[in-house]
């Protein structure tokens, strides 16, 4: 009963948020023609979303899977093995908790690519803001792209930080399971 109520509240909040964003976007498009700065913002948002797409969904799926692992719910192990770029034999030798951690670390290359690209854009935005590149017309548009990228970077950072809290929990849980299995094994022969 409590779980149902929670789900209803969550769905309501999500629907309200989406409706709010939709109304805002419609207002943006209908009430005022988009300025060049708005286009720069949208371009930055879209380009960095493309760069971050694998990270956003990867971290999201990892967090979901880790929660299932911690709750001892069945996990699609083959699906995870297909996602991680490592030799299949090595992956098959891993315990489930190690496989999850390997999956998390496999996303690091996308993470570093994203943060490097974001830092380059941030650096050039700051250089134009402090007028260190001389007078140029690009500065204001670059700032728009920077803010668009910041919105995506915010989501990536949030999921990144959250996902990286799970390995410790996974390790603790695996150790717990292992200890209880050992006890069972110790008890069985008697």
């Amino acid at each position: 009963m409590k779980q149902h109520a929670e789900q209803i509240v969550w769905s309501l909040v999500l629907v309200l948020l989406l409706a709010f964003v939709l109304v805002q976007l419609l207002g943006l498009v209908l009430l005022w023609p988009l300025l060049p700065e708005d286009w720069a913002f949208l371009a930055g948002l879209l380009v960095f979303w493309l760069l971050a797409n694998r990270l956003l969904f990867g971290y999201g799926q990892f967090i979901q899977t880790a929660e299932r692992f911690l709750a001892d719910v069945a996990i699609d192990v083959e699906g995870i093995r297909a996602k991680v770029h490592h030799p299949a034999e090595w992956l098959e030798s891993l315990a489930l908790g190690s496989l999850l951690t390997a999956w998390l670390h496999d996303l690091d290359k996308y993470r570093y690519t994203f943060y490097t690209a974001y830092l380059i854009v941030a650096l050039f935005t700051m250089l134009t803001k402090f007028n260190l590149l001389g007078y140029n017309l690009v500065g204001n548009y670059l700032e728009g792209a920077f803010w668009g990228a910041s919105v995506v970077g915010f989501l990536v950072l949030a999921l990144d930080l959250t996902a990286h809290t799970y390995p410790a929990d996974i390790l603790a849980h695996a150790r717990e399971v292992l200890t209880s299995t050992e006890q069972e094994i110790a008890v069985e022969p008697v």
Partner: protein
Amino acid sequence: MSKKRVWIVLFIALLGLFIGFGAGGYLTANRVITAMEQIPASPIVLNAVYEKEQNQLALSVFNPGPVPLRLQSYSITFTPGSESDEAAYIVSEIPIQLDLPPFDAVTVFVNLKEQTAALAVGDLVTVSIFYTHPHSPDVYSVIHPYTQGASEQAGPTPTPTQ
């Protein structure tokens, strides 16, 4: 739920506020700037100097707004003071056709009527400058009263308090 995750949620919420503030501020500021750039301002006469040799007034006219203006013509109304021997006269619609760029000043030389004596102390010359701006076909005017011998910095006469 680990304690670390609670701190991450708080940190991310704070960061979200900053990024929303930055992005929203950027988009809003550009809209406001675009809107403000459409508003024409009325020119201001910063200073008026009478040049006796040429018998003319040099008005420095400033455009305090972001829309370029075009000064089309001027008219003068001469009202003699008590020390003057001249008769009152009106000269109207002298074309000048001067462009007044945004946030810039130009000097307008206003010629007084030919073959008249130099201005005496107390003479009043009221200069009307007619200008247009690109958003409207209308003609607007700004009127500057110049009194010979009076301090230019004084501004309009204050109304006496009762």
